[in-house]
């Protein structure tokens, strides 16, 4: 078990390092001259003073060879220093840290909604014996993943804020302003969860242990919840990392639609002014969240399914 934990931790760190390296390559290396991009992309588009450009270059270390730059940046990143925002001068970590609580509230609320409705939908679709109803319920998730998230948000605003005047259209104070964004964000995530869960529920219901339970006289509901759902939940657990990543990415669009403060909105404004340090910080943060979510799943999984530690590496990969 300890070896298993250690290997998972090492993998997580390796992926993070690689994600940092990749974002460095894409952002600091690809565009010919990041400094002029920064200076030109800032608030003042007009003129860039050559002397100022030189000092900027020195400050960011662009006069040194790329490998030296990279080692330098990586060394600072390990200590939690991702540089300063070019647009505001604020440290990247505090840009993300300040925005984090709002995004956590939004994604947390959306996750709860997605799990409740996604699971409910999958259970209902696999439980009902009416063919037409089942078809209808099963078509809902495919609909949910096909709708553009921003459009769903705009439609909800139109209906509930402008027509019915029930909920505020934007802002982030209070529960009322959280409802529409959380519902919007929960649609694609819940639909994804429902798809995976319905599929594994159907598989589980075909297993011999379900027949055994039925033969022993267990009722349909009991078989469904106690036997099938328990086993079907395991495959669904493997997509938690994907779900969390989707939620975080979805917050970019949802926060823009509803003008909420948060990481997504900070990202959009950073991309718009080509604020490279902030974009890089957000990319690494996204990878960190994904890696942590997967790490938690990896560590929790053996508690539910002890077989996993024995044949860990190959099996897990085939499941994902």
């Amino acid at each position, binding site marked *: 078990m300890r070896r298993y934990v250690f290997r998972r931790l090492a993998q997580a760190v*390796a*992926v993070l390092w*690689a*994600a940092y390296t*990749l*974002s460095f390559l*894409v*952002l600091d290396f*690809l565009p010919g001259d990041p400094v002029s991009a920064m200076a030109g992309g800032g608030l003042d588009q007009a003129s860039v003073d050559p002397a100022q450009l030189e000092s900027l270059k020195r400050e960011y270390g662009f006069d040194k060879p790329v490998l030296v730059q990279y080692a330098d940046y990586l060394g600072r990143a390990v200590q939690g220093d991702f540089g300063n925002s070019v647009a505001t001068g604020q440290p990247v970590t505090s840009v993300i840290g300040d925005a984090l609580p709002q995004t956590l509230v939004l994604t947390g609320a959306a996750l709860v909604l997605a799990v409740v409705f996604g699971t409910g939908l999958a259970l209902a679709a696999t439980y009902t014996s009416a063919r037409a109803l*089942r078809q209808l319920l*099963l078509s809902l*998730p*495919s*609909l949910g*993943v*096909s*709708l*553009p*998230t*921003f*459009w769903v948000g*705009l*439609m909800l*605003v*139109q209906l509930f804020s*402008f027509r019915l005047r029930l909920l505020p*259209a934007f802002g982030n104070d209070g529960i009322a302003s959280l409802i529409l964004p959380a519902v919007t964000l929960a649609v*694609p995530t819940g*639909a*994804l969860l429902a*798809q*995976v869960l*319905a*599929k594994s529920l*159907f*598989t589980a219901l075909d297993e011999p242990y379900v027949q055994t339970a039925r033969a022993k006289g267990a009722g349909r509901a009991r078989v469904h919840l106690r036997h099938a759902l328990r086993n079907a939940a395991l495959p669904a657990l493997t997509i938690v990392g*994907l779900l969390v*990543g*989707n939620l*975080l*990415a*979805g917050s*970019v*669009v949802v926060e*823009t*639609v509803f003008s909420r403060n948060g990481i997504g909105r900070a*990202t*959009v404004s950073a*991309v*718009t002014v*080509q604020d*490279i340090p902030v*974009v*890089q910080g*957000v*990319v690494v943060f*996204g*990878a960190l969240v*994904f*890696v942590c979510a997967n790490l938690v799943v990896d560590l929790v999984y053996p508690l539910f399914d002890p077989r996993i530690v024995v044949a860990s590496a190959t099996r897990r990969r085939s499941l994902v």
Partner: protein
Amino acid sequence: MSQTVVGDPALNIVPEPDPRDRSEATGWNPARGLDLHRLARFLLRRPGLVLSIAVVALVVLAAFWPTLFTARDPLLGVPSDRFQGPAAQHWFGTDEIGRDVYARVVHGAALSLKATLIAVAVAFVVGGAIGLVAGFVGGWVEDLLMRLVDVLLAIPALFLSLALVTALGFGTVKVAVAVGIASVAGFARVMRAEVLRVRHATYVEAARSSGARWHSILLRHVLPNAMGPVLVLATLDFGTAILAVSSLSFLGYGAAPPAPEWGTLISTGRNYLANAWWLSTLPGLAVAATVLATNRIARAVDGEWASQR
């Protein structure tokens, strides 16, 4: 029943390689030819699929010959006709400077289809190449490439595209390339799995032992036989790419304002949500219908066609 759920595109889960199913699934086995009778029976039982094919056909037609659908200019506004609701005169209404929204949606199909095709092509070519090299060469090259793929999977796709957009700049083509690169990983995985499956097949061994060069083995034996599932994945990727491209253009990184890109249309309509509901609603419906249709077709290509008897 579970088939319909298995193949859903947005899952982005690598389909299990099942050699028999796959080669049949694509229905392009030249030796067997296309069985018209079977095709007709298949379609007749699935009115939704026929409708989806019709929707996609309309979008493609609109992209290449927009004048078939509308004679109006998508960029020319008639100020006296501002903010007219949908009616016989203007099917989708008019916008804030009196442009016909229907004409803009029709003309926008070209930009959106172009971006989607570029995105899927980039993902297919780059991902396929990575997977092909990894599977065929093996050794440390394979390890290195597949670790790269793991990292690509670890960064949420939208963040990766946003980073690429930051580096490349704004515009439809750049956004499309960014979206394509962000979905390279899935293609690389499937291609590698297929190459590994094919590499040790008897006919490859036979070609090798009869003295064929490595490149001829790769191009004539391995690649054609590994291609099927990757093509299926490409059809699955269409819907995802349309959504990703429209999200990025909604955020404002796509075509510059007067151009009628679908995501941009929805985002400009956002400012008039309270008094002109049609500006965002109807272009959004066009996007949703297109994505639903491509997803439905992809699902048919992925599983149903092969499982039908």
